[in-house]
């Protein structure tokens, strides 16, 4: 699903966020991306969805070399990928329902179907009672779950989750993890950047650890840290 070879990203201001990263994530995998603050986790996810372009090296996602995507292909490419952003990226002027619906409006699903699917995912994340409310009227954790709902409503091939439990209490976090596990079981590849040691240790999935932009560890069924 994702293949990176000697992938390097240097931002315009000179920061080397990723350096010579090589990895291979297969279809259907569930991968944790860990590493200290500023290690390059979000940068990697942003490269995958082509929000940023690699400075050097090779990156292919779902069989496409992202550096070679034409401008008009990008929207179609992105539609197959769900992304829970670290800062949520909700539309401030759309209600929760509209925020989630947007991912379906874009692919022109018909209104009845949109309604059904949106209700379904809002129920999954426990926010069906907040459907007609604006993001500014939600708590941090609630906003985070809206972002999750929007990312999965479209049944993506690949789900990128950037710290999706950062503002959730442990119980809610676990419910969300169960949900992600279920989605993964149905075939969606998941890459999740996280700092939540408890979750990583308990899930026993593949762990890729970055540090200062370099790959420092890649174990299947690993823990958050080596000593764990």
């Amino acid at each position, binding site marked *: 699903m994702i293949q990176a070879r000697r992938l390097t990203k240097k931002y315009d201001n000179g920061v080397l966020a990723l350096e010579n990263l090589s990895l291979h994530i297969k279809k259907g995998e569930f991968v944790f991306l860990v590493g200290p603050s500023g290690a390059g986790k979000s940068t990697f996810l942003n490269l995958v*969805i082509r*929000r940023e372009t690699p400075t050097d090296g090779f990156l292919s996602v779902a069989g496409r070399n992202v550096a070679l995507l034409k401008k*008009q292909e*990008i*929207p*179609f*490419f*992105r*539609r197959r990928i769900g*992304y829970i*952003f670290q800062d949520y*990226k*909700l*539309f*401030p*002027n*759309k209600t929760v329902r*509209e925020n989630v619906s*947007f*991912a379906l*409006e*874009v*692919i*022109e699903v*018909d*209104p009845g179907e949109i309604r059904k699917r949106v209700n379904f995912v809002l129920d999954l994340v426990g926010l069906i009672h907040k459907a007609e409310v604006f993001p500014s009227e939600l708590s941090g954790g609630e906003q985070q779950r809206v972002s999750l709902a*929007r990312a999965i409503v479209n049944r993506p091939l690949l789900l990128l989750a950037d710290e999706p439990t950062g503002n959730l209490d442990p119980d809610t976090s676990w419910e969300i993890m169960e949900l992600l596990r279920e989605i993964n079981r149905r075939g969606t590849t998941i890459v999740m950047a996280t700092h939540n040691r408890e979750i990583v240790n308990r899930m026993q999935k593949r762990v890729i650890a970055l540090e200062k932009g370099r790959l420092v560890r890649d174990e299947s069924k690993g823990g958050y840290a080596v000593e764990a």
Partner: protein
Amino acid sequence: MKLRTFRYFFREAWRGLVRNRLMSLTAMGTIAIALVLLGVFSLITTNLQYFGNLALGRIEIRAFLSESARNHELLKAEIQAIPGVQRVEFVSKEEGARWLEKALGNKGLFLDGENPLPNSFNIHPARGADVEKIAGQVRRVAGVDEVVYGRDFVRLLHLAVRLIWVLGFGLLFLVMLAVLYIVVNTIQMTVYARRKEIEIMKLVGATDWFIRWPFMLEGIILGIGGALIAVVIVLEAYAFLSNRLGQVSTVLSLLTRAEITPYVIGGFFGVGVLFGALGSLLSVKRYLGI
């Protein structure tokens, strides 16, 4: 693209406007006022033009007859037959003297019975612009000794009308550009304030056109809203002013409100829609590049 997607675009546009109420109203106000300025400019130009043509239309040609001139009635018929002539009046030498005295403000001028003036005709052209051509033809009529009209005045008036045309409409074109610029800038600012939303749309997989449509419709609605306000302001103010002016002077007659209404409405809505759409397209384009 499916039909219901267009319905969605309209809903989106409407929501965008309503949920950014303050911004929308501010933008609409600016557009309205810019259109009002455009309207004021074009109404002034059009009325000056109209007034100049009216003045040209009031010009008369004076044809003095030779002493040996034939029957007046026959001559009158002949002149009347010249194309562009609207009306011909016979002026006897006595009437002529009285007219000249009055024009000079000097009452005792010809009182001693010696009247050197010949009989004459007053000729009214249908269109002021034809004065010189008609004068030329009248001159060739047998029995007409001399043809007189305020040549300098006609020429000055012609020049003025032409100047109003060139300067007025040149200026109007520039004002139009200025209004276009203001409207486009205003709409750009509404889009600027929402550039984050465009970024999110792109990240969620919206195509450029999917993003552009609602913004374009918003621009058009803003343009129409602005036009609506401008139409009301301009027509009401025009009615009030031309009414007031009618009380001050009967010489200065303006186009009536009824005459200008269709042009004002058509023009404003056309400009509003066009500039609104253009403004959104140009500014969304900028943020799509990101």
